[in-house]
């Protein structure tokens, strides 16, 4: 194994252990406890009422908007990581390139703010 890859091996072991513990806990409970379901017990909880319908229905579009905004800014963060690590080697040109990029994004951010995309009334 290449040394770079060997460093990642413990993560694989962690995944295996964590998965096994989780499986063992759920399976252990399924085996140890008495399972006795009936219609009222396994119906969806709705404060004591019979459930009116299931939960596969429309929901507020604002959650969707938040997710879109998140993708934009998270991409920006992903773009900043390599820049932050190597800023000492890329000099003033590298610095001002990123400042220009952030400037464009700030204009977009101000536009979103003024348009009310960040409001949640």
């Amino acid at each position, binding site marked *: 194994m290449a040394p770079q890859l060997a*460093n*990642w*091996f*413990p*993560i694989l*072991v*962690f*995944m295996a*252990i*964590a*998965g096994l*513990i*989780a499986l063992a*806990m*759920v399976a*252990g*409970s*399924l085996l*140890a*406890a008495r*399972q*006795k*379901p009936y*219609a009222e*017990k*396994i*119906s*969806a*909880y*709705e*404060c004591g009422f019979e*459930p009116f319908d*299931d*939960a596969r229905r429309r*929901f*507020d579009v604002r*959650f969707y908007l*938040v*997710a879109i*905004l*998140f993708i934009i*800014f*998270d991409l920006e*963060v992903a773009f*900043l*990581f390599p820049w*932050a*690590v190597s*800023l*000492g080697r890329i000099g*003033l040109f590298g*610095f001002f390139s*990123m400042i220009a990029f*952030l400037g464009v994004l*700030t204009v977009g*951010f101000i536009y979103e*703010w003024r348009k009310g995309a*960040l*409001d*949640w009334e």
Partner: protein
Amino acid sequence: MSMSAFLATPLGVLILTLVKALLFLVPLLIGVAYLTYAERKVLAAMQLRKGPNVVGPFGLFQPFADAIKMLMKETILPAGANRGLFLLAPMLTFALAMIAWAVIPVNPGWVNANINVGILYLFAISSLGVYGVIIAGWASNSKYAFLGALRSAAQMVSYEVSMGFVIVTVVLCVGSLNLTAVVEAQRNWWFCIPLFPMFVVFFISTLAETNRPPFDLPEGESEIVAGFFVEYSSMSFALFFLGEYANMILMSALTTILFLGGWLAPFGLAPFTWIPGPVWFIAKICFCLFVFLWVRATFPRYRYDQLMRLGWKVFLPLSLFWLVLTAGVLEFAGWLPVT
């Protein structure tokens, strides 16, 4: 075959890695169990109550009693639920909270996977936490669970953005993504001093990321009962619970590494340096966890629009501004780390 020769074989490496991983995970799980106990005791003390005091001396066996009780309860699979995903979600939440610990350094060299992109790995794993929540809420096929999952997902992604900017600011001061390098870069100054506003933003964001009070809207008992895990019972509920508390410890460890100097003694002064590094590391984690509990006992819950406003209109501009400021100061004062 000698011991060292055996440990060089593939089987030896596997066994050694397993033992090292368990040396991390077993204390972590015990820590999680006792964090639930500490939470009840601290909250009780702040409200002039006694807290758990019946099972064992000072109620010290309470976490184990709770675990056995959970194990003996029936696992309810709701009629309308998507069964496979319903059982997968808590396992995913729990497993993600565990595997993040593979890269946490406790002392120089005391780390399972000393990868050169440690911060990025932690950022990725904590982002994946949203999947457990969304899968649980959708697979339950219950309205409360669904609403809770949507709220929780929107909240977690909102605060992740400013967390990302804060982490980039720290990376600027370090010049590396390796977590050991981050701690070693704080020999002279812990980053909580020069980057104090970022430290505050980061800590509050970790409260929102872990769905802790005052940002526990996904659970909001008075409106949506328990949010995304309302339909869960028995061990699958316990896995969510353990995952949340393991995430609290993980976020405290991350705060310690990024801002509180990890295993370094304060200012490198003589009486403090006599105490070994791992003790400092654990003490700092305990301090952060205590603040988590203290906040819970002190502050009322946020309203959803206030939460969104704080994330997008206060933290995001503030962290972006401080990032540019830090980069500018480092660049023009010639303080950039050259690695």
